[in-house]
């Protein structure tokens, strides 16, 4: 009964529904990429630079790859990087934010200092520098680099939420009952800020998708992997716009914006649902 009510509560938020549907659709595209895409993403057997047609919905690249197939296959890695990086960031910020807020004292001082340093260091330039030093051969370094710079904001938000929750009666009761601190933090308190953690996850995922696209556009990712970012990189390097192949550039960028917006909508919606003042 409880979960049914919760579901209808979520479904009554238009932003959550739209964001969720878009994300679900893209996840399905990623899972069924081999079925949806008519050709392999790296097959180069077609005539190069074809305009959109029935055989090639988005035309072909200068190397003779089918752009539509590339976009469909690219959904996989792009989504994976966004969701995995979002999870890693959410994990780091939850751990650091909650521990700092709960223990206070010097633990808080040290953790908050680290958080604030990462908060003010400019993320993208740092990522560019790191990515330039290593030769990126898979998406793993990209995920690591984005995670390093992306967790601090969430940690700060969760820490301040912890400060308000830790003086509640149920926490005091748990302390008196002799529960170990880590159990109190992660079993007693954490479920009460799930909304905030989920919102934080979507925020980090948005950051990850945009950063990934930026790095790959600069050629700092693995340019042979098929993601929306690398498709844009190749489109730009082959002067897609000037050759009249605008769809090669427009579609992947628009998809990044749509994926980013679905994360942003979900982030905003969860925020709205958990903050009673924002509710109407």
């Amino acid at each position, binding site marked *: 009964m409880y979960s049914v009510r919760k579901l209808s509560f979520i479904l009554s938020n238009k*932003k959550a529904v739209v964001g969720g549907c878009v994300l679900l659709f893209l996840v399905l595209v990623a899972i069924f990429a081999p079925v949806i895409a008519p050709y392999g993403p790296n097959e180069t057997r077609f005539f190069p630079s074809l305009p959109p047609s029935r055989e090639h919905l988005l035309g072909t690249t200068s190397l003779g790859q089918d752009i539509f197939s590339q976009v469909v296959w690219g959904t996989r890695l792009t989504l994976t990087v966004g969701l995995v990086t979002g999870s890693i960031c959410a994990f780091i910020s939850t751990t650091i934010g909650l521990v700092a807020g709960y223990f206070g004292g010097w633990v808080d001082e040290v953790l908050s200092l680290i958080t604030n340093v990462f908060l003010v260091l400019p*993320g993208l330039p740092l990522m*560019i520098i790191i990515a*330039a030093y290593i030769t990126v051969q898979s998406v793993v370094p990209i995920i690591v680099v984005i995670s390093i710079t992306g967790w601090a904001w969430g940690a700060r938000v969760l820490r301040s939420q912890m400060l308000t929750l830790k003086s509640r009666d149920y926490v005091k009761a748990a302390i008196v009952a002799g529960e170990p601190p880590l159990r109190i933090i992660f079993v007693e308190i954490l479920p009460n800020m799930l909304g905030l953690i989920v919102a934080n996850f979507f925020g980090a995922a948005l950051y990850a998708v945009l950063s990934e696209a930026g790095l790959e*556009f600069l050629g700092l990712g693995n340019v042979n992997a098929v993601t929306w970012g690398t498709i844009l990189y190749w489109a730009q390097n082959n002067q897609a716009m*000037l050759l009249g192949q605008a769809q090669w550039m427009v579609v992947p960028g628009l998809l990044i914006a749509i994926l980013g917006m679905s994360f*942003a909508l979900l982030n905003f919606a969860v925020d709205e649902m958990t903050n009673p003042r*924002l509710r*109407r």
Partner: protein
Amino acid sequence: MRYFVRRIGFLLFTAWAALTINFILPHMMPGNPAQVMLAKFQGRLSPQALSALTEAFGLNMDKSLFMQYIDYWKRIFTGDFGISLTYYPSRVIDVLAESVPWTIGLVGCATIIAFTLGTLLGIFSAWRRNSALADALVPVALFFNSIPYFWLSLLFLYLFAYYLGWFPLAGGYNIYTMATGFALLPSIIHHGVLPLSTIVITALGGWMLTMRNNMISVRADDYVAFAHAKGLPDREIKYRYAARNAILPSITGFSMSLGFVIGGSLLTEVVFSYPGLGYILYQAVTSLDYPLMQAIFLFISLGVLIANFFTDMIYALLDPRVRDGGV
């Protein structure tokens, strides 16, 4: 006063952290990137330049890491960042001096415009909440906030510069003119419009949403209800009562968004070949010019840290609770 000391301490600490990260990174990376770079430039650089590079990147095995770290600090305080390989034989510091003003101008103007416009839209959308236009602003802002900077830049470049020909395709000013000083201003503005509007459009949404949420929270406060009850005009309550308090969290958000805007402007500069730090950084990265890369990261970090410090000071000026150590 205590607040001031704490902020200064934090500024110094973050500056130290940024500079140390900058030093450690090339040493930590697998396969010694500096060696790769040296191999690439062997024979193309003078022996002196090569030995200076060897020194700067710790390939000189006679020195301990700690001694190299000391040397690194000495070089920073003397402004000696070595020779740029991309713009050989220019000194890195000269290359930087030429590009820093462009980025500061671009990012500065864009941030001021985006902050003002976004905040005003946020006030509007919170105050007129539940009207169709104000509510439609939210998803629109979320969408603009999710657009990749460089992609919007490319679209603008193609549409307004290439296709319609309204704006120049590249650069920061007209290089074929004899004009100098203020006579260049029209050309600079003409070149700046497209990069500037890309950054403003993508950054606007964030400011709007923050301000909107703050305003909605503040609106429910008792003192606003009291002001209504007293019969004060709506306009006055909106700006002099609610917005004044609601804007405080927006100013705190500055620190994070500044880093984000800088990142975005780097990509925008690359697309528009705008002669700022981003464009130079891109050149440095693609040609493995590590001395230039290191110096650019250093300058960007310090710039952001100092801007952040001033934001904190303004915040203290606006909010006495912060100044007196209440929060």
